[in-house]
């Protein structure tokens, strides 16, 4: 019994790290640009498809697939920001919401046109390998995904904290006007931020491609999950996204053990509503929106 619980807990933590990475992408964008990327789930799904193709066609290790996803999605995000999103950064939230809803419809449509609506299982060899650590048995795919996600989160944190560009990102997040005054190149900061956010989503998608079948309609679920995660942690907070991801991952895993499948999917939302009642801005939320 104990080992069952430990296993569930461990797999929750592992998936939670990946959720954390997804949420991190959303939260970085929000923190710096005060824009909520409602097409975030689509970016995760892009990553899943990249993972699917890389592993399927070129038979590369999942880590390489993740690296490809990172590069592709960074460029994608950078271009999307420069060409479109920047026009809406200073518009009210509902306009941004509608633009992103439009984008998400467009992206889902593009995926449907390209790949069709049917799920494509990646069927990685990894899914069947397990690692045993005393009480806990973990499947390799999950472990690898979590380890990579954890590493990336750490690297990104260090980058934001210590590099000069990372510092200017945080300066822009703290005070956009101040950032302008001290001469930050705000358009570039925004474009890079959006690229980083998209890259986080893409990498997370590639990492979980062995666990989830590639399917266009998956996007909505990922978007909603990312929202729940960042609100639980607090929009715009780095550690909040990580904490939120872990909390949701573990809660889902435990719920899967205790409740029916539909209750399992309802749990994150229930958690969110409860948290909004008691901590309306999440655990590490920004003071004012």
């Amino acid at each position, binding site marked *: 019994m104990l080992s069952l619980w430990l296993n569930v807990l461990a797999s929750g933590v592992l998936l939670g790290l990946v959720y954390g990475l997804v949420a991190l992408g959303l939260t970085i964008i929000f923190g710096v640009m005060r824009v909520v990327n409602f097409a975030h789930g689509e970016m995760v799904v892009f990553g899943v498809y990249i993972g699917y193709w890389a592993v399927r066609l070129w038979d590369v290790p999942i880590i390489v697939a993740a690296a490809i996803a990172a590069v592709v999605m960074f460029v994608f995000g950078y271009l999307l920001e420069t060409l479109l999103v920047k026009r809406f950064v*200073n*518009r009210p939230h509902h306009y941004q919401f509608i633009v992103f809803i*439009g984008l998400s419809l467009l992206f889902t*449509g593009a995926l*449907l046109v390209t790949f069709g609506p049917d799920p494509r299982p990646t069927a990685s060899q990894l899914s069947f390998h397990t690692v045993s650590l005393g009480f806990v048995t973990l499947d390799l795919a999950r472990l690898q995904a979590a380890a990579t996600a954890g590493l990336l989160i750490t690297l990104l944190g260090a980058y934001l904290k210590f590099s000069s560009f990372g510092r200017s990102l945080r300066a822009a997040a703290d005070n956009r006007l101040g950032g302008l005054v001290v001469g930050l190149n705000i358009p570039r900061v925004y474009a890079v931020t959006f690229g980083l956010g998209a890259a986080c989503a893409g990498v997370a998608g590639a990492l979980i491609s062995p666990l989830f079948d590639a399917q266009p309609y998956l996007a909505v679920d990922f978007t909603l999950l990312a929202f*729940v995660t960042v*609100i639980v942690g607090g929009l715009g907070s780095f550690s909040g996204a990580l904490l939120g991801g872990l909390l949701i991952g573990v809660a889902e895993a435990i719920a899967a053990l205790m409740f029916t499948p539909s209750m399992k999917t309802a749990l994150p939302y229930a958690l969110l*509503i409860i948290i*909004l009642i008691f901590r309306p801005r999440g655990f590490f939320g920004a003071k004012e*929106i």
Partner: protein
Amino acid sequence: MQKRFEGSADIRPWLAGAMVFVTLALVGALANPYLISLMTIVLLFTFLGQSWNLMLGIGGQLSIGHALFVGLGAYSVAVLEVKYGISPWIGLLLGMFLAGSVGAALAWLSFRFEVRGIYFALLTIAAAEFARIMFSGWEFVGAMQGLFFPAPTNAIEFSMLRGDARFYYFVALALAALGIVGTELISRSYLGYVWRAMRDDEQAARALGVRTFRHKILVIAISAATAAVGGGILALVQGSIFPDSIMGMGLSVDVLIGPVVGGLGTTFGPLVGSLAAIPLNHLMSALGDSLRIPGLNNIAYGVVLVLVVWFLPDGIWPAMVRLCKAIQLPSRVWLPQPRKAEE
């Protein structure tokens, strides 16, 4: 002297509106069945858009989970009729009550801590998803298998709101007209002034004595209750309801497309926007099906939304009004200003 400032004395907008509805009534009398069923949906979404528009366009509160209220209305009507044979009229009342209470409760929860803007919007979407999942697993309301109304008849039964496609067309038309007249009346009453003041600047409104806390709850409750009426009728028109389609994200998006494309905060915007967007969606779906390209309608919808927000940020209707200034229909155009940099 003062009489010159009587804005409500202008009857031209009412005349124009009446003309539009006479035309729509003729459509109902003459059109073929396909057009009738398409226009029924257009009119229902005009009404739903109107309810959403009241909340954001006049009240300033963004909901991206309106499917919650639509779904509560639909389920109230469906459960009462399918399970107990109770008239949809009662179901509509129950739906209004439920949706209004849930809306008010959400608003109260959120605004109690002065949480507003995007957090409130995210709360609405979370609540809608939570409800959808709960309804998907709730056997009493049919779970994923949904609920089916008794087969439609050609005999019109007003007490049970039952009849043929044409009957539902006129029900939807009446509802849309009611929505437009209602919005215009609210907009000209003290509530309209107070809500628009609150929408534009909450602090300034409070300084003028507007009790914004209760007004925000009120506008959300009214919007939710009217959305439930639209949902109840939508359920009857469709003949069946399923949690994913009546409470899903997709429906929340469909509700707001009309007013956004047509013109936020305008009285006729939702009608114009629905007239433009829904046939386009149907056309693209049909095209996609015949070409065997799924997703074509998503792409078309997506592109239209982005282009409208980009090039016609205040929607089609205000642009039309600007084009034909001579007619001077009433429009309450709300041009949002850029957010302040220090936010």
